[in-house]
C-alpha cells in the first residue's frame, strides 16, 4: 500500500490564531528565534491500489472539494517519500 499526504494550511492572508498562540508561547518556554508559526492539517491517506497519475488526480480533486476549504485554505498533495 502507498501513502499520499495532503497538507492543508490557512491562506497567508487569513489570521491563524492557533499558530499565533504557539508562537506567543514558545519564547515563554525558552524557545527563541522563531519568527512565525502557522498551524495546519496533515492528512495521511493509504491507498488500496498503486499511486499513479490517475490516483493522484482523484486525490487532488478530493482535496479541492473536501479536505480543504479553498475559500480560506491552500493544499498540497504529495507522495510520501519512504523514510
Amino acid at each position, binding site marked *: 500500500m502507498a501513502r499520499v499526504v495532503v497538507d492543508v494550511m490557512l491562506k497567508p492572508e487569513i489570521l491563524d*490564531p492557533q499558530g499565533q*498562540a504557539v508562537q506567543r508561547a514558545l519564547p515563554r518556554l525558552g524557545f527563541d528565534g522563531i519568527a512565525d508559526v502557522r498551524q495546519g492539517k496533515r492528512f495521511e491517506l493509504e491507498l488500496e491500489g498503486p499511486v499513479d497519475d490517475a490516483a493522484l488526480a482523484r486525490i487532488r480533486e478530493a482535496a479541492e472539494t*473536501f479536505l480543504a476549504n479553498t475559500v480560506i485554505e491552500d493544499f498540497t498533495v504529495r507522495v510520501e517519500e519512504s523514510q
Partner: protein
Amino acid sequence: MTTRVGVVTFPGSLDDRDAQRAVRLAGAEPVALWHRDKDLHQVDAVVLPGGFSYGDYLRCGAISRFSPVMDTIIEQAKLGMPVLGICNGFQVLCESHLLPGALTRNDSLHFICRDQKLRIENASTAWTGDYTQGQEIVVPLKNGEGRFVADEHVLDALEAEGRIVARYLDVNPNGSYRDIAGISNAAGNVVGLMPHPEHAIEPLTGPTTEGLGFFTSVLKQLVSA
C-alpha cells in the same frame, strides 16, 4: 393551512429539538427532516440547526454539506426558499457556498457560551422582518468555531449590499471580521447566524425572548409571499 418549517437532523445535530420548539412557539408546524432523505416533505422553509454535525470533524459543516438532504436544500434555496442556518447550520451554508466566507476557530481558541448583544443590521431578510433596523437584542451565543472570515472585497460587498444581518455589540466574542454575527445571500432568503435565537424564546430558559423574531419573521414572509 399552517406553515411547515423543516428542521434538519444531521448525525451530531444538537439544537434540532430547540429549533423545532421555536418554530412551534412562533406558530408554525415543525417538520423533522433527516439528512439521508432528499425529500423535503413539502416544507415552506428550512432551519439548519446548531450542533456538531459529524463531530465537527475535518471542518465544521464540511461533511454535512454533502448529505442527500443538502442537495435538495441547495437547489430550493437557489429558487428562493427561506433557509436559516444557526451556528453549525451557518457553517454548513458557507461550506455549501450558499453564503460566502467561512467560519474558523475562535480567536480565543476556546469554546464560548455567553449571552450576547447583537444589532440587527438588516430587517428585510426572510428571517428578520419582525425586527427593526438597528434593533438591539440579547440571545445566547455558543461556539468554538464562530469567527467569520472572508476576503476584504467580499466583506466590502456584503456591507455595500446590506447583507450583514447582525453584528456583535459590546464584545466581539470570537474575532469575527467586522463584528459579523450573521449574513444573508443576495436575495435575502438564506441567512446564516452564529448566535442562537432558538435559545431566547421563553423567559424561563433564555436570557430574553428576543430570538423568537427570527421564527415569526419567516411566517409573515411566507404568508405574504
